[in-house]
């Protein structure tokens, strides 16, 4: 009969070895899939720029202002004078970022697109983002928060506010 200490040592060794082997397998899988996943994410961002400002043909990435809101990932200037702001925001209860791209032209939202949200099943099938179309910095906050969507509408609204803020910083408050 094995001594209790032998069993404990064996348990620790077996569990540790299994953890190491699984970690190695994950590392190998990550090595091969990571570039593909990253390329897919970039493609999604590019597609979202086009969806945010459908009239534009090309986009030029701008540098972020020093005191830009933390949720802003990148800002692009479209060839038709509009701006597409890429944001990553997170609610207090979620485990992942919500990717949002907001298109702003002439001081109003052209389109707001939800590009990624890990916790949302039926992703992108709701109509909440469309409520922001045509809203300006002065009236976007009037849109009601809603329950029943699978992501935080309050956080989404905050992201639109951040988009207005960063565009105002870049244009210096002039009508863009």
């Amino acid at each position, binding site marked *: 009969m094995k001594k209790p200490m032998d069993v404990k040592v064996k*348990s620790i060794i077996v569990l540790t070895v299994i953890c190491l082997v699984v970690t190695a397998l994950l590392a190998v899988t990550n090595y091969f899939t990571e570039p*593909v996943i990253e390329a897919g994410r970039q493609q999604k961002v590019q597609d979202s720029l086009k969806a945010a400002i459908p009239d534009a043909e090309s986009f030029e990435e701008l540098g972020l202002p020093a005191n830009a809101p933390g949720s802003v990932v990148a800002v692009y200037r479209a060839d038709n004078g509009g701006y597409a702001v890429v944001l990553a925001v997170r609610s207090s209860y979620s485990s992942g970022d919500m990717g949002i791209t907001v298109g702003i032209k002439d001081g109003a939202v052209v389109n707001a697109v939800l590009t990624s949200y890990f916790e*949302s099943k039926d992703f992108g099938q709701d109509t909440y983002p469309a409520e922001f179309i045509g809203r300006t910095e002065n009236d976007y906050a009037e849109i009601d928060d809603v329950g029943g969507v699978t992501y935080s509408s309050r956080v989404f609204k905050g992201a639109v506010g951040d988009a207005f803020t960063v565009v105002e910083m870049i244009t210096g408050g002039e009508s863009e």
Partner: protein
Amino acid sequence: MKNKLGIVLKGLVKENPVLVLVLGTCPTLATSTSVVSALAMGIAATAVLVCSNVCISALRKLIPDMVRIPCYIVVIAGFVSIVQMLMEAYLPDLYDMLGVYLALIVVNCIILGRAEMYAKDNGVVDSALDGVGMGIGFTLALLVMATIRETIGAGSFAGIELSFMEEFKIPILTAAPGGFFVFGCLIALVNHITRGKAPVRKSFDCESCPSAEFCRKGSCTAAETAEKEGNADGNA
């Protein structure tokens, strides 16, 4: 050969993990709103089930009882993460569609249940076949539920609009109450088909507890003693 086929077939109806063993109810209700997401969830869970069953069966003599469950969870979580990464890389639309439910396969009772009920006591080939059978059973149950819910609830099949269903849609079937209703009806149907021959779950006593083998102390021993005394009194 007949035995091997029996291992696979039992998961389809007689021991269907969803409709007879009533395991994995959460992903079943959540992903059966559309046929495509149900099929994707079924295939992903089957892949994890087969791989984890094979792995756990191969390691069953090496893993001490004390760390059995943590080892199973690490193995299952590893395979789920691999499936998740592959799906995000090569099937991004399905990955977005399944959302958090893909990661939740880790805690799907079917996977851990089969590891505990079958793979830890049987050989690699039998465990793989059990995984295939249970996986197909899970996928079939999801597909049947999703077909009913999407066709009658949303008037479409696999995202294709069915114009003849436009007038007869029952939208509540796509919501949670409708999901439970369809789930209950299917369980009743399978129960009727198997005429009560499906395995009956043991009562909730100490013996049916997964930890009974190495626990046997405290309340477990007290309950057994009381039961034996009761039997002795009865016999007397």
